[in-house]
């Protein structure tokens, strides 16, 4: 482990599932590097492989091919050599906090369990740590005796964040931690993540489909389409001038809560749904829906290369100085 090593790096990562209907290429060749201290958003539509990618990164999902390193150390090797040590470094937060907690354990038991398993401290030290965790995630002490089902959605998500923080990890990987929450509570949890990252120097990877939130809090972003990275880069730069036609369409689809902006802004309306990952299109996977596709796109798969915003995009029409700009229509 070195200080300068990326928090997470994946090379040639593939996760394929054999199903009755054929091979699903959920993640199909992903190269990804996430620096220490980053707040990295992975975005894309359902079926693009973002959750599978996140699970494969932490080893909750076996990779079919490729390699993942965490802080410079091979993840598979690390996990088989010392699983507990790995767990003290990387923690995962699930989309559904209720499903990821034992329904029969009180919050106190849920938070104590990782400390016990890792043999950290005596009873008094553990109780003190639990107090510390509660205050980190801003939960009142009164929740300790309660069962998950008697908590609100936001409280449950705070408990699962507290549990993930119990072992003082360096990296937090979160799968849609906000989707199940109400709007006003979502903001509370987003702010909590931002605060924790600063306070504890965490690296946070968040799988999300709320692009407005990703734009607010993430430092870097990866846009996925059908098992591949379409585009990646520094969040602000990418969101200001997305290079990949898919990213442009995806970002254009986000409505503004301000009706004066929303009712007048021109937009890109894609036709059709994303194709099935069972049978991805030949060539560029976005070519079937891409309004600017050229012949080459239909048979040659584009590789990631430098885009004008300094990140990378997988599009034949993009290079370091140019990007295609999709035509928009009036609202």
């Amino acid at each position, binding site marked *: 482990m070195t200080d300068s090593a990326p928090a997470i790096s994946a090379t040639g990562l593939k996760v394929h599932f054999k199903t009755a209907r054929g091979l699903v290429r959920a993640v199909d060749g992903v190269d990804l590097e996430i620096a220490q201290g980053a707040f990295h958003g992975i975005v894309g*539509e*359902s079926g693009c492989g973002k959750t599978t990618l996140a699970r494969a990164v932490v080893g909750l999902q076996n990779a079919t091919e490729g390699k993942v390193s965490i802080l410079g150390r091979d993840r598979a090797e690390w996990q088989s050599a010392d699983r507990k040590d790995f767990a003290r470094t990387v923690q995962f937060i699930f989309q559904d906090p209720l499903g990821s907690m034992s329904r029969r354990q009180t919050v106190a038991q849920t938070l104590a369990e990782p400390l016990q398993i890792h043999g950290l401290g005596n009873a008094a030290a553990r109780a003190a740590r639990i107090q510390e965790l509660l205050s980190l995630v801003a939960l009142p002490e009164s929740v300790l005796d309660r069962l998950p089902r008697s908590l*609100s*959605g*936001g*409280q449950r998500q705070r408990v699962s964040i507290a549990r993930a923080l119990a072992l003082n990890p360096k990296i937090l990987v979160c799968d849609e931690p906000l989707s199940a929450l*109400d*709007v*006003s*509570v*979502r*903001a*509370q949890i*987003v*702010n909590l993540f*931002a605060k924790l990252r600063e306070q504890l120097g965490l690296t946070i990877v968040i799988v999300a*489909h709320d*692009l*407005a*939130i990703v*734009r*607010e*809090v993430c430092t870097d972003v990866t846009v996925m389409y059908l098992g591949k990275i379409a585009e990646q880069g520094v969040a602000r730069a990418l*969101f200001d001038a997305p290079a990949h036609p898919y990213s442009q*369409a*995806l*970002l*254009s*689809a*986000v*409505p*503004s*809560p*301000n*009706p*004066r*902006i*929303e*009712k007048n*802004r021109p*937009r890109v*309306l*894609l*036709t059709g*749904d*994303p194709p099935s990952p069972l049978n991805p299109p030949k060539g560029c996977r976005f070519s079937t829906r891409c309004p600017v596709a050229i012949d080459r796109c239909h048979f040659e798969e584009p590789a990631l290369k430098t885009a004008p915003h300094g990140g990378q995009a997988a599009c034949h029409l993009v290079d370091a100085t140019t990007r295609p700009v999709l035509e928009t229509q009036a609202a």
Partner: protein
Amino acid sequence: MSTPVYAVENLVIDLYTPTISVRAVDGVSFEVHAGETLAVVGESGSGKTVMTLGPLGLLPEGVADDLKGIAKVDGRNLVEMSAAELSSIRGKDFGVIFQDPMSALNPMLKIGPQIAEQAARYANAGGENAKREAVSLLARTGIPDPQDRYDRYPHELSGGMLQRAMIALALASKPRVLIADEPTTALDATVQAQILALIRQIQKEDGLAVVLITHDIGAVSALADRIIVLYAGQIVEDGNADDVLTNPVHPYTRGLLASVPDFRSPTASGAREIPGLPPNQTKLEPGCRFAPRCALVQDKCRVKRPTLEHIGGGEHPRMVACPVVLTVEGLRS
């Protein structure tokens, strides 16, 4: 102003399960006119779905409900109707789009005949006419190759296509009111944009009254003409969509909107949050229900329940249930 297509007055809905009772909707009034989209905004548990689907008898099974008040369509009160009467009115005058298309479509039947049956029953289109009507509805809702899709089962269609098929089903009876309960929540961003555009287009063409139930402020801003904001079963703010979204008055509306980041004009300050949680509706305190979370709270707020008061002159009536903000900011008309 024209007569409303659907008018609800002082609606109260109590829900009972064997162990608890909840006043889910507590004295709500609203109306919706032809050609108008009314958005009902609120978080989970605010009563927005119960308020809208309750009078139609569409609440989930296993929950006993007790409705009081008036929900009037064509001068007839839905609240006082027998189940049979309600069933005929519901099919004829109301089309409903749900969050999950599979709650409206029968998975065992082909899509087209389900739509044709609805058209035959309520829009007097018999036999071949019903089929022709169904195919044209599928085409109208943007389903490619509608002749072929007519004979498909729901599981053979993608999520976005199913959502369109459900909209076709809702339109088959030629309803006057379209109720859309979180129509885009389960959809991907690019498909969401398509469905919002479709609803807008259909409304324009048919002059439907649309009631949009959602917590997605983006969808509201894209579609709504008017907004009512619901908190713990009560309306806290009611007004023209542009006014409410760009210049909210009730402290809850202000908090709710501030917690929604705007992708189109991001700010450095980040999403602001409302502290605390919505109240537990099984044991409600007197006074304003937002009081425990409100930054402007005064002693009187905890004692007396605020009523909706008109503010501003202007052509668009605006109502807010917060005496504090109205007094402090001198907003009473």
